[in-house]
């Protein structure tokens, strides 16, 4: 298990690289690796830009039926998200982006869990299973 800080644009790149290594080791196909790394990039940027920085935890997990997968948890202690449903809507953006970061990342992974409270930070956990 690796825990990585997300405090700068450099760190976002390092998270992507680490996720790529773990996903390849775990036996994810090239397309699935690319999807997971792209989702990680979106979420790491959110942690940096909206959460004011935080950390990412990358680990290999096993499912009940023996498949392995890559689990990544992002946590920050930023302002939090007041309306989770709205934040997950395609095209909705709190800034000047396209509003595809969170909703797009959710489409690219197999499991997606978002928890946030205003003032108490945000945590996103995603899993991509090998096929």
């Amino acid at each position: 298990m690796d825990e990585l800080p997300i405090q700068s644009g450099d760190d976002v790149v390092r998270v992507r690289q680490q996720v790529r290594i773990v996903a390849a080791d775990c036996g994810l196909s090239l397309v699935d690796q690319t999807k997971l790394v792209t989702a990680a990039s979106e979420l790491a940027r959110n942690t940096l830009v909206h959460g004011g920085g935080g950390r990412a935890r990358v680990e290999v997990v096993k499912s009940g039926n023996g498949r392995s997968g890559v689990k990544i948890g992002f946590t920050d202690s930023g302002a939090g998200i007041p309306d989770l449903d709205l934040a997950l809507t395609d095209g909705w953006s709190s800034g000047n982006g396209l509003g595809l970061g969170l909703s797009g990342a959710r489409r690219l992974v197999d499991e997606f869990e978002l928890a946030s409270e205003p003032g108490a930070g945000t945590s996103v956990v995603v899993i991509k299973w090998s096929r």
Partner: protein
Amino acid sequence: MERVPIVKIGQTLFVSIQIDLEDDSVVRLQEDLADELTATGARGVIIDITAVEIVDSFIGRMLTMIGSISRLFDAETVIVGMRPAVAITLTELGLSLRGVRTALNAEKGLRLLNGTA
């Protein structure tokens, strides 16, 4: 932050992205390209992303913006060399790169710009 070099050949600016792009590098590339376009009067921009392993929503938006900015300087942008896994992921992410042209490789991109495709 690493910078992406821009090379002018004839009437075309060539950009080959060989680094793991951080957001600042893409923003910088956008500014550098706008400067180069005004300085050189180039009519086309070819961005080779053969070595780019992922294009997320930020990078995708920046590529689209580079296309729009180039057009304001009377230049066309062609993105070339996208990897299959990147194309699949971009589509699932919901990004269409509307407004920029694409070609399989730099040679075809150049032909597209020269109107001989």
